[in-house]
């Protein structure tokens, strides 16, 4: 329904065009600007570094290395960044509504990746994996993962957070940690019993199209792009647009925003607050699930422990972008993914440092940004009104 515009009247062609602009073209444009912006800034940084340290190690000319690595770093940054962004959305949505860090979200992501595996494994066991249309297959995997993770998130809220509403802010944090421990070991137990193993490898052997890398000739050499990387980016873009529409363009999205600003008053307006909170968890959870499935397809193997690191990174991304802000989560995720990719690519050449310091530098960047923008990149910089 085209209820996004405040004007009252019939649906005209003009309003359709405006709708398309607002909910499709604009978000795509925005993502494009973020990606290109981050890439340009970091590329300049890389060449700047090469100017400063032309030969950080004997026989290694940094400019040449940067030339060779640039496309690869950018592609890897974008793929990781979109995954971070999708997980970060879950943190941001829940934070916006309930004002607490849902530490269990990383495990919701993990469950999504495990469910993605289960779907493919089952299809493979039944022997009909190779006959699936690639697009349908990917959609199926993502949808099942979304559904499962979304429902799981709803259940978690119901069991572990709702009874604690109104308790001090840190209390649900602890039950979230409890949930997180529980889920990790529960999935491990489940897999250990049913499969005798918990390193879960997506069965892609029969899917030629998924395994054949695409060779892109860029500059001096060729870059191999895995089809899964396309899938990740495409899947992320589509789901992010859908989320943007949901939050900003639908009545339910408006309800969620109202609840996030003032729960009591939202109730007075006739909004069933609990249902809205559940809905928020469902949406946030299903995005985590989709991210998990995409991540799993991209990396090939997942375990019950796979959620921890991306979870922390995504949480960082949410803060970087300004927690509570949907666009901020997107920007934060992309920025973090790109920064990491470039740090990984460049630190290698500095003997005393190396990639082991990537996280140290990435966090330093975060701290720097927060010092200058205490509410994150896009967080509303409210001077508190008193």
């Amino acid at each position, binding site marked *: 329904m085209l209820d996004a515009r405040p004007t009252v009247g019939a649906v005209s062609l003009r309003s359709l065009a405006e709708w398309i602009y*607002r909910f499709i073209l604009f*978000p795509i444009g925005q993502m494009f600007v973020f990606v290109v912006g981050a890439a340009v800034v970091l590329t300049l940084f890389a060449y700047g570094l090469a100017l400063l340290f032309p030969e950080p190690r004997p026989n290694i000319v940094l400019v040449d290395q940067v030339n060779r690595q640039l496309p690869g770093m950018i592609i890897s940054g974008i793929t990781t960044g979109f995954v971070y962004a999708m997980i970060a959305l879950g943190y941001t949505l829940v934070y916006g*509504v309930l004002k607490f860090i849902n530490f269990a979200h990383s495990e919701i992501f993990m469950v999504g990746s495990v469910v993605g595996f289960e779907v493919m494994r089952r299809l493979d066991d039944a022997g009909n994996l190779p006959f699936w249309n690639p697009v349908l297959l990917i959609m199926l995997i993502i949808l099942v993962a979304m559904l499962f993770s979304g429902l799981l998130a709803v259940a978690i809220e119901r069991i572990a957070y709702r009874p604690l509403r109104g308790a001090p802010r840190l209390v649900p944090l602890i039950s979230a940690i409890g949930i997180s421990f529980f889920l990790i070991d529960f999935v491990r137990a489940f897999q250990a019993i049913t499969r005798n193993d918990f390193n879960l490898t997506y069965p892609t052997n029969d899917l030629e199209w998924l395994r054949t890398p695409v060779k892109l000739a860029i500059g001096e050499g060729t870059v191999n792009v895995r089809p899964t990387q396309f899938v990740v980016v495409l899947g992320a873009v589509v789901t992010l647009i859908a989320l943007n529409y949901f939050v900003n363009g639908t009545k339910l999205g408006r309800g969620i925003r109202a609840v996030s600003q003032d*729960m009591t008053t939202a109730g007075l307006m006739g909004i069933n607050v609990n249902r809205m909170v559940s809905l928020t968890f469902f949406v946030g959870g299903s995005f985590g699930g989709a991210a998990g499935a995409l991540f799993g397809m991209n990396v090939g193997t997942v375990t019950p422990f796979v959620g921890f690191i991306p979870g*922390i990174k995504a949480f960082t991304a949410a803060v970087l972008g300004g927690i509570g802000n949907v666009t901020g989560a997107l920007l934060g995720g992309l920025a973090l993914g790109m920064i990491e990719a470039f740090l990984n690519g460049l630190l290698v050449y500095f003997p005393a440092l190396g990639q082991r310091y990537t996280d140290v530098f990435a966090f330093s960047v975060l701290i720097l940004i927060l010092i200058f923008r205490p509410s994150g990149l896009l*967080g509303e910089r409210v001077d508190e*009104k008193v």
Partner: protein
Amino acid sequence: MATKSVSQSPWMNVRTTMRQPVVAGALLVAYILAALLILSNLDRGSLWFPLYSTLAFPALVLSPFIILASPVRTPLKVILVALLLFVAIPYLGMRDSSYLELIIQICIFAGLALGLNIVVGFAGLLDLGYIAFFAVGAYTWAMFTSQANTVFNINGWLVSGAAFYGFIFLGVVVAAVVGILLGLPVLRLRGDYLAIVTLGFGEMIRVIANNLDKPINFTNGSQGLFDVGRPPVPPLLYNSVVGAEAMLGFPIANATPLSQQLLFYFIAIGIIALIIIVARRLDNSPIGRAWTAIREDEVAAIAMGVPLVRMKLMAFAMGASFAGAIGVLYGAKQTFVSPESFSLIQSISILAMVIVGGIGGIRGALFGAVIVTLLNLLVLKNLSLQINALRNVDFIVPIINFHIRDWPTQLEPAKYERLIFGLLLIVMMIFRPAGLLPEPRRKMELLEAKGEEPVTVTAENPVVTAQPDAGKA
């Protein structure tokens, strides 16, 4: 309104009698003695040993809390606690040093929980990287005493174990300085932004410790610093242990490791006692009031003349310095310091202790530390051991006629300690959201919060915000 019916049931009579100080005191002594006797006479070989020790040991360790809550008079409380700490527990340690080890671990976590409680509970700053300061303390000691540190070792800069006490002080200073250095840039951040930055800082310290074997080897990297020095055992302590063993007619066990452990135990309770005194004095002072004010309303606090950053820095540095001192102790006790001991999970479990116990209260933090450590290192472990023991004798559960031996190995409880721990955390939070031993003030907040508070939109309290209005762009 339902008024309590004043029934003169026998139970009420018993309760009134028990509230008599003399009776209560006698009951307490009997209780502690019973726990002690059961514990020290348990036979490790017996089938039900894990179960019994799981019941008796927490009973003993938790007795200080019972003493403090009991109606006996303060001097008697002090005497009872002192007897427990200086007689009962060392005695138990001689009978079975694993309990002493457990108690030392509990003390280490209790110290950390008390320190974190100052940062999180008093000043309301969510610190998810607290373990970093602990690491700083541990490395401060280990770097200067481990044979594995090639820099100091080769240059003859290693110090002897006797320097330990000085290093506790040094650990305090170094950790406090690190706390201030980190705090200066980040303490202006609000609420959960601080959480992620401290989390990142904790990880940074760990990564640096893991990699500072190059270019110069300070930390021995991932190999860790082993052969870390220990404070020398005072001859008096050693001789008393030997004497006590002889007197009590024990087979002379290893007096050397035992007196070493006892030394650590005494140092640990010394440090904790100091931390408790410091924390209490801070709480009842202008500084403590300023922290509470900051926690409750930053804007009002600064407008009333409380210098925010300075007070927060002070909280941060105080908390850090406690962790530093405990870290030095830990390094010496463990004799091995490696980055693996300072993970995010550790920070989180300390936070869990503070919250499970009851945030903002000294008793709560201690209680939380005891409960969580007991759960982790005793209860869950013993559960696995018990089932294993039953399996070894092919125990059959009566009534349902189930052979424990048939329990599948995939479901071995030892593998699911964290799962159970997670469940317990959730259950505890749901049933005691203010913590197991809540601060009266915090408990009240909770009660009233149920009356649905308005959500004010502020920078630290943001809400889901829309995309910048695309229609206008």
